[in-house]
């Protein structure tokens, strides 16, 4: 299983400063949360998709299409069954319910797509450096970046462990819910133990390379706000301002 979300391309989007991309992501969240009108949300979706296309990142959406689809479907089914509303179509299902379900589903999907575009165009190191430049302490950013890096390794370990236990006769797919739950014990324990076992060496190796020598450190990787960033930042701020104006003043 490929666990890395970053797509290594050299595009306008990839060259943007991680802080700019974070703000764009945030702006899309804010706008998605503010409006319940279908045309507005459709417009926002279009903008975000274009933004993602600029970075050739939309390929990654294929990987989560199942989740996106489930969220949309679940949302429509749930709300059309339970929303109520005057224009009944069949039983409890109403036009308003279906529309409301679509709107809520879209809000979730927009945020997820926007998040995925950010992660597909930004390296883990850039995210962590961006956070440091935004005044997050280095050690926190380090732990965050390390955790992301560890995930695929831990998943690989757990696959090996699953194979080892299967060879001994463990069958994860049978039994009732409680029995199945208990079957995760032979997988979880060796996984946790073999990961945690490395803690001491990990910490020793870190200090042996000068981790914590000084509060300040050089950053080999460089990020900076350039012309393109200013343009995008400006656009994002305008979008937020205009949205807020329409949301709270006009309506």
């Amino acid at each position, binding site marked *: 299983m490929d666990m890395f979300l970053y797509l290594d391309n050299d595009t306008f989007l990839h060259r943007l400063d991680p802080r700019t991309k974070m703000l764009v992501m945030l702006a899309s969240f804010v706008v998605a949360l503010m409006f319940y009108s279908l045309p507005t949300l459709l417009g926002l979706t279009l903008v975000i998709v274009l933004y993602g296309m600029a970075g050739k990142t939309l390929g990654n959406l294929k990987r989560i299409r199942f989740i996106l689809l489930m969220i949309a479907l679940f949302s429509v089914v749930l709300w059309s069954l339970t*929303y109520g509303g005057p224009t009944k179509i069949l039983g409890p299902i109403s036009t308003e319910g279906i529309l409301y379900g679509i709107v809520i589903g879209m809000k979730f999907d927009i945020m997820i797509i926007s998040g995925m575009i950010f992660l597909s165009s930004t390296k883990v190191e850039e995210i962590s450096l961006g956070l440091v430049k935004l005044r997050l302490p280095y*050690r926190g950013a380090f732990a965050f970046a390390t955790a992301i890096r560890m*995930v695929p390794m831990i998943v690989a370990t757990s696959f090996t462990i699953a194979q080892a236990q299967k060879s001994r006769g463990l069958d994860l797919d049978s039994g009732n819910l409680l029995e199945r739950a208990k079957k995760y014990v032979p997988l979880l324990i060796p996984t946790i133990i073999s990961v945690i076992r490395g803690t001491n060496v990990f910490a020793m190796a870190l200090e042996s390379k000068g981790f914590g020598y000084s509060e300040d450190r050089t950053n080999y990787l460089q990020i900076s706000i350039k012309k393109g960033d200013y343009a995008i930042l400006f656009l994002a701020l305008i979008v937020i301002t205009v949205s807020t104006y329409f949301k709270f003043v006009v309506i």
Partner: protein
Amino acid sequence: MKEVFSMWKDTKMVVLVALSAGIYAAVLIPFKGFVLIPGITEFRPASALPVVLGLLFGPAGAWGAAIGNLIGDFFGSLGIGSSFGFVGNFLFAYVPYKLWRNLGMVNKDDMEPNLKSSKQIIAYVVVAILGSAACGLFIGWGLELLGMVPFAALASIITLNNSIPSIILGIPLLIVLYPRIKKWDLLWTDILPEEDVPAITAKTRTGAIAMTLLVLVGLIGGLAAAVGGGQALLYSGFASTAGNQMVVIIAGIGSIGVLIAGWMQ
């Protein structure tokens, strides 16, 4: 609360944050696709971890649960809800380790979570449920506040979803993990210098009692207000829209109150 920030000075604790987060995320991700579907969502094995990580690694476990959940969100649900998920999962590990020490359910001379006595097992079940509830309360409140998901449905589902694995899987997990972690000197109380492990005082005791009450009042009160306002529990709770002011106020008092009570300990 002090140790939550001072622990970052210690390299081992930093590493434990990263590893806890990595493990939590790695177990969360394979189940990502199933989270929202009724009928399959009842079981999320990863939810067994935050309580166990909190009791073993203290503040490092709490940060680990918070960051791990955020990374899990990267794989298909990163959105504004992730910020509430961050705090909620922090509390999922933080509340248990604080209450374990400060609620007075465990003997002072047998504080380490070995689950060898029935007294400890009972204490584990209590703090696991309260931790699960604190997480459900905070996330439920947050999304109600944003008008995204009704409180009664979300808070009750998360609380149950968290409690069941933390108890069924968490107990056997902790029983086997504790002796190894102890042997490798990785219990948080063994790693941090003595002055950084908060002493148990009248003030922390008060904080723990306040925390327990606030979790219960926030969750039960919020659910009652929500049901009174027309929401229903669990999945039928999606029948109504979010944004009930009474619910936002009561659950909000609970959520913010838990954070303040956490500060006291």
